[in-house]
């Protein structure tokens, strides 16, 4: 009798690792993704459903792992990630001009994707080890841990992912308490750098100017953003057309499956990076704001979990993961609406793409695991 599982008990057991608010918000986003996908690329619906199922399962699995166990996985994951990145640099497959994929025989994987999780995990674990004795040396060491994989990803070259991985690490460092005296100058330098690019864009974008640090295609992306009309049939076309799609959606949108920019193929990459344009065209400002609200609620939940987390490591990890979600969303929507350069960043939880969805849902799983850890430590 004792060993026979009562159905209610079983469901309760299954639901135990789940954080209801987070799960609810996630389900809203995933449902929205399916609705938009049906319009953007009906042929990919089946794959999207499979991806969603796999991602949710992995989220559940991750959520069941106790947070301390997760943190203890940091070092091995990080080491494996770096080794794989070196493997990509040496034996990787070249696709669309960049070397990002590694064929392991069973599956083709993108190790840089793994680093999006492994990096904040590693730094959170690292700071937890040094808790109570965190000083300049620790921050410098963290900087090195951050720089190695980022450098490897930059050379692939994959500017978008390297920026995201770097951001993930920097968020941990920020939450770990890096002095404002250091943060403020760093941010200032970044802002001034970007500002000068915008101000002197015309001269810098001359074909003969070599930007040294950035590759030609990266320079192109930045320059296109500064003046999309300079290249209306090339990269600028993407921004122009997605902006037209968003603007023509108006207040209430053209209606589901009714987006002319979407259905007449004017929006590029409409099922992946530019899926927000599809949504904004068909559901208008109302739809776009609804998405922003749901996303913001999800982010707030993440921050609440971080604030209430029981240990330093889990607090840092939860805060960083939340900020990564935010960064994805902001960079993507900023790019699609023409206020940020075209960087290959998907819209979190909405864009088509199995790897990204799985990574993001594992991130949600980690948040849930941390939330459950707090509940356990409180009891």
């Amino acid at each position, binding site marked *: 009798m004792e060993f026979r599982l009562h159905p209610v008990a079983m469901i309760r057991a299954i639901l135990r690792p789940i954080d209801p608010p987070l799960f609810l918000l996630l389900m809203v986003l995933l449902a929205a993704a399916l609705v938009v996908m049906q319009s953007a690329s009906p042929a990919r619906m089946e794959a999207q459903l499979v991806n969603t199922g796999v991602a949710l399962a992995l989220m559940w699995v991750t959520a069941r792992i106790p947070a301390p166990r997760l943190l203890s996985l940091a070092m091995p994951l990080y080491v494996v990630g770096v080794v794989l990145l070196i493997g990509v640099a040496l034996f990787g497959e070249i696709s669309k001009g960049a070397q990002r994929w590694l064929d392991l025989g069973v599956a083709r994987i993108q190790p840089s994707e793994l680093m999006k999780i492994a990096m904040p995990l590693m730094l959170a674990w690292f700071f937890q080890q040094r808790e109570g004795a965190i000083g300049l040396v620790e921050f410098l060491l963290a900087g090195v841990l951050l720089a190695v994989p980022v450098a490897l990803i930059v050379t692939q070259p994959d500017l978008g992912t390297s920026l995201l991985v770097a951001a993930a690490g920097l968020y941990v460092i920020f939450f770990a308490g890096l002095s404002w005296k250091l943060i403020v100058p760093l941010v200032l330098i970044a802002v001034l750098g970007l500002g000068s690019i915008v101000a002197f864009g015309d001269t810098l974008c001359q074909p003969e100017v070599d930007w040294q640090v950035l590759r030609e295609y990266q320079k192109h992306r930045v320059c296109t953003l500064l003046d999309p009309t300079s290249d209306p049939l090339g990269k600028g076309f993407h921004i122009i057309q997605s*902006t037209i799609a968003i603007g023509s*959606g108006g207040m209430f949108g053209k209606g589901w499956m009714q987006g002319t920019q979407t259905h007449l193929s004017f929006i590029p990459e409409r099922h992946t990076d530019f899926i927000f344009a599809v949504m904004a065209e068909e559901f208008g*400002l109302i739809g776009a704001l609804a998405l*922003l609200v749901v996303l*913001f609620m999800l982010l707030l939940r993440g921050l609440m979990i971080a604030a209430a987390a029981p240990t*330093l490591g889990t607090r840092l990890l939860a*805060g960083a993961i939340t900020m990564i979600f935010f960064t994805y969303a902001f960079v993507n929507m900023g790019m699609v609406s023409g206020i940020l350069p075209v960087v290959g960043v998907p819209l979190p939880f909405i864009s088509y793409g199995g790897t990204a969805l799985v990574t993001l849902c594992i991130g949600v799983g980690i948040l849930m695991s941390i939330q459950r850890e707090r509940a356990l430590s409180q009891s």
Partner: protein
Amino acid sequence: MTEFRSPDQDVSRLRVRLVVAGVFMLLCLSLLAARFFYLQVLRFDYYHTRAEDNRIALVPVPPNRGAIVDRNGKVLARNFAAYTLDITPSQVEDLDETIDRLAEIVDISDYDRRRFKKFREESKFFESVPIRTKLTDEEVARVIARRYLFPGVDVQARLFREYPQGDLLGHVVGYMGRINSRDVDQIEARGKTANYRGTEHIGKRGLEESYEEELHGKTGSEQVEVDAGGRKVRLLSRRTAVPGNSLILTVDAGLQSVAHQAFGERRGALVAIEPSTGGVLALVSSPSFDPNLFVDGISVADWRGLNESPDRPLLNRAIYSAYPPGSTFKPFMGLAGLSTGKRTAQQAIADQGYYMFGGHRFMDDKVGGHGMVDLHKSIVQSCNTYYYMLANDLGIEGIADFMRPFGFGQITGIDLPGESDGVLPSPDWKRKRFKKPGQQKWYGGETISVGIGQGYNAYTPLQLATALSALVNDGVMFKPHVVKYVVDPQTGARREVEPKPIRQIPLKPAHLAAVRAAMVDVNITGTGARAFAGAEYSSGGKTGTAQVYSLKGTKYKEGNVAERLRDHSWFIAFAPADKPQIALAVLVENGGFGSRSAAPIARQVIDYYLLGKRPAGQASEDEDAPADQ
């Protein structure tokens, strides 16, 4: 649980930073919200218009061009649909590479490539240009199946022009060609740019050129939804095109065929006119050319063959080449003598074989002369001396004044492009024609030559046929025309071309009768007798021999000089004599005496026209034109 307890201040500092992060996120997301508001509300109208512009294209629908048929309804020009393989260069990154890959699926010859290059230079950058025309069904299927591999490449159904009669009416019907930059300028000057949107071909010669406005029709339009690749997705609205008018010609293709074949390999021209209407029954310029060669861009080899041939097949001798009329001028001169009162029909002169003027002896072609010669004999025996004297009596001004109303030396105004005016000599003309004062003076001796149709005289076969028509039609002059009716294909309404005479030349019936009687006698006892022996109808005629003299100064190759220096042979004729239904002028270049080469052609043509008789050994025009089913 770690063994260290984190200090409370660390936790609260972290919480502060979490709040900072939250506020930062809120600010950034608000920035996005503001951006969306700007795009979707403040700038909605602008982006809405941009999206509509993206989506909706106004596609011109070129009208069906009118057909051209002969007086019996035989089709001379029509349209047929065929598939072409088009490339839009502006949508293709590497043009050569794309063409190379296409060549693996369909045949693309060097000629196709050269033509594509030429067309491309003449078209606007966003226009599509055909790389192959007349694809087979199999080729169409092969391309369609692989279309996704070829962005900017498309198969299009186009209407092509077809001339089922081949070279039979090349000079009359003309041909169409791709609109080039010169045509574009002309269309613009005519204010027809909008009506030619979507049209790629235009009449370049012949009726296709002169009736371009009638044949073309009115361009319609379709509002279509297009995708990013510019492909039609769905039709939104349509304004149908109005097809061009058809032309029913006065020309009889059967007669044309008889005349055309009668020339064989010889160079020359024939114009046959219905005197009572001015309608052209046949208009031959030999050799002719096949207008079908031009339909989708003529190949270099074909063009060379036509353009560099010493026989000059592209030259329309019937309306452009002017020749001295020789003795065919004599009936008109005789009529001038009667009408001006300088001669009566019975008045005879004594011909001793020559005429002395200004110390120069103008020879008759009969040694010893024709004896006593009156008007009738002067025409039947073609006596030069009679006309030397008459010319002197009339004076050059008198001759020019009398001949002018018959249309000599002027554009007849026929509805074909490229007519030339020839020369009706007069002192006035000479003053304008020559620059040096010494050459500008008119000499009396020159008048004497003009009297027998030599000298500065130069008329086109069309002018001679038109003048003859007026002569046999009691001086009632029609403007010669090739088109009988312009027909609206939708309503069937017909508009007749040139139904009214343009003038009545004041001539006395008795004078006309005298001249015509003499011409009838030419075909009975005179120089036309042999050609018209045994004819089942009465007819009139006059031979002529034009000394080789070309106003346009054609250069001939040395090897051909001997043959090409022979005189041109003329014959003018009409039949039946009492009420002429046909008047014609025949010229055979370097044909020698008119009676030998030109007159038999006139006989064959009249036999066919009046009796329906085909010359022995001539194929009917149906077998002649296998393209016509």
